[in-house]
């Protein structure tokens, strides 16, 4: 993001320059080195991990699932039990993973007592566990009963050689009830097994570790290391505060996450008592964001694109670019939004997948931090509305839940909101919605790359100027290469070790068990820094005329119509067999 862009044109630099020394002097490259340092450490910890019995269980479970798929026209009890056996293996359950998680822990959830987010004593944990035990016992009994009913119904369907449609549907229904009961037992188990925690010492250690981590890059870039380290403390504390505020029960319900709280908290300080001068050397917004984006790249696994087959690809990867490009053109030609960067950030935020797309796009086109803030604010407001209205509408009109799930997955911005809205309808809707959103998340890499190329070749130049490929290279935001490289490398690793080991060691190992948590902290730091450096009046200026709001509403309306149409065609006309089996 740039603070000093010219206001009359989008020219940032007339002619770029590159040299070998950029590799150790420029911020983009340091974001890549630091990001990859974390990814390499994570890969060394999780990828060689030997989870006892993992390979044998995968082979046995896959054989059972294949046999059951041959035997019955629906997913049987044995099919699900084999899947559960595979899902048991997660890299995040390794002892070292638990230590890492404890060290990287942010303030947790709370309702009325803020201290609950930081400390839970042994006595408090035991009291909570005791309170949860009766519920757990009841849930276990209900699960056993549901399982017995499911097996009986399945037996009845099998006795008719699975040729009686009514018996098959009854069996599917009973198996579905068992899955719900099993899920309820799992949640009740968590409430009966509460562990004590104290995140205060680890937060202090983490603050020091992160300060030193980023100071390495600051030193190499020739900036004020001492000033950075002194200022880093308050920035870290504000990001921890952002996590703390986002963990409050009502805030969790409404989806007011750490990003918004970081910006709000920072802006309140900056525009009241003022950001102290000694904090300003640590307001390295772009450095934190770019490093976080390199880590995010590793989470963009291209093999996820085919998770739900061709219907998912069409809903997520055909509709999204159409909506993105059309909304951008609408913003330029019809609304005549003065800032192209604001236009593309809002368009990407609304059409791709919300905040993460906005961050990647803003960094790729060097948007101003106020533009990113405005975009995320718009996204939050509409996400809160859509996650309530859409499920209600879907129920009211009697829309099939799988179609509704695909529709919500392709349109609601935040993955958490998508999951909540899907869960509100049914488990199937949740699975489809969450999977569609996951496939859209993968589009971030392509979006960031294309926006970066377009901006270098067409936008960041004088009209009529012909830009050579070398010039594009000079101007290209190099961290995007790190983002893409991480994505390609981890996609390759995940694909080559197979889907089961990929789930256990990459998805639930390196990524969810390590790099994702670091990435969350880096984004929290960047949003806290954005807030501390933002002036209310500057932010209000971007909202003048209401054009950003009109852009978002028009684009989202188009998105809703096109996604619904495509989801209906794909899931009910072209691939009804996939829909029937989900």
């Amino acid at each position, binding site marked *: 993001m740039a603070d000093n862009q010219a206001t009359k044109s989008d020219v940032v630099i007339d002619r770029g320059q590159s040299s070998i020394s950029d590799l150790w002097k420029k911020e983009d490259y340091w974001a890549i080195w630091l990001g990859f340092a974390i990814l390499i450490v994570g890969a060394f910890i999780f990828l060689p991990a030997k989870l006892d019995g993992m390979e044998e269980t995968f082979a046995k479970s896959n054989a059972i699932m294949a046999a059951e798929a041959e035997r019955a*026209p629906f997913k049987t009890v044995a099919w699900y039990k084999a899947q559960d056996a595979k899902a048991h293996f997660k890299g995040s359950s390794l002892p070292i993973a638990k230590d890492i998680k404890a060290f990287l822990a942010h303030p947790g959830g709370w309702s009325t007592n803020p201290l609950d987010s930081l400390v839970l004593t042994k006595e408090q944990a035991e009291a909570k566990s005791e309170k949860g035990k009766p519920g757990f016992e009841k849930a276990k009994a209900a699960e056993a009963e549901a399982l017995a009913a499911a097996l009986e119904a399945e037996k009845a369907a099998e006795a008719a050689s699975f040729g*009686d449609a009514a018996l098959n549907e009854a069996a599917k229904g009973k198996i579905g009830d068992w899955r719900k009961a099993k899920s309820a037992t799992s949640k009740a188990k968590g409430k009966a097994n509460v562990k004590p925690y104290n995140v205060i010492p680890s937060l202090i250690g983490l603050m020091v570790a992160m300060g030193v981590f980023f100071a390495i890059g600051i030193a190499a870039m020739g900036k004020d290391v001492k000033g950075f380290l002194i200022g880093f403390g308050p920035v870290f504390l504000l990001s921890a505060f952002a996590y703390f505020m*986002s963990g409050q029960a009502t805030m969790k319900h*409404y989806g007011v996450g750490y990003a918004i709280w970081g910006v709000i908290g920072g802006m309140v300080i900056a525009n009241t008592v003022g950001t102290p001068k000694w904090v300003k050397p640590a307001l390295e917004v772009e450095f934190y964001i770019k490093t976080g984006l390199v880590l995010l790249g590793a989470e963009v696994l291209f093999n*996820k694109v085919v998770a739900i087959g061709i219907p998912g690809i069409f809903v997520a990867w055909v509709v999204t670019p159409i909506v993105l490009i059309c909304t951008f053109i609408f913003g330029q030609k019809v609304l005549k939004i003065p800032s192209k960067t604001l236009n593309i950030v809002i368009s990407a935020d609304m059409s791709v997948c919300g905040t993460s797309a906005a961050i990647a796009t803003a960094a790729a086109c060097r948007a101003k931090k106020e533009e990113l803030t405005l975009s995320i604010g718009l996204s939050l407001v509409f996400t809160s509305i859509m996650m309530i209205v859409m499920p209600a509408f879907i129920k009211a009109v009697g829309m099939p839940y799988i179609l509704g799930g695909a529709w919500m997955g392709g349109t609601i911005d935040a993955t958490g909101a998508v*999951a909540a809205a899907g869960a509100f309808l049914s488990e199937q809707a949740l699975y489809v919605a*969450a999977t569609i959103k996951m496939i859209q998340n993968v589009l971030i890499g392509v979006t960031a790359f294309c926006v970066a190329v377009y901006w270098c070749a067409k936008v960041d130049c004088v009209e009529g100027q012909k830009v050579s490929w070398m010039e594009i290279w000079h101007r290209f935001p190099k961290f995007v290469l790190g983002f893409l490289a991480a994505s390609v490398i981890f996609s390759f690793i995940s694909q080559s070790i197979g889907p089961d080991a990929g789930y256990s060691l990459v*998805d639930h190992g390196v990524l969810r068990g390590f790099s994702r948590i670091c990435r969350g902290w880096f984004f929290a730091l960047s949003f806290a820094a954005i807030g501390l450096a933002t002036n209310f009046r500057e932010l209000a200026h971007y909202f003048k005329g209401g054009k950003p709001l009109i852009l978002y509403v028009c684009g989202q309306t188009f998105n809703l119509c096109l996604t619904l149409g495509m989801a209906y065609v794909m899931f009910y006309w072209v691939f009804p067999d*996939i829909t029937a089996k989900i």
Partner: protein
Amino acid sequence: MENASLFKRWLALAACAFCCWAMMFVVLPAVNRTFPAMARLGKVAEENNIRVGMFFYTDVEVTGVADLNIENTIRFMPHGGETPDRG
């Protein structure tokens, strides 16, 4: 003058903190009571351990479950016993 200005700035900070507190404990809970759909959605999110504000799929545990379920459904799609036994 400088102190008065500083006082006003701290007062503004306190006012903002109060507004946040009011939103968290007064306004939004009142919205929940007025619109039961909102409260129901919050309950669903809590039961499924979903943090609504999380923006990427790896931040939401349930997407891992969804991914696993759908991926296995596509890999091992049930197709047996669809022809009735006419024997």
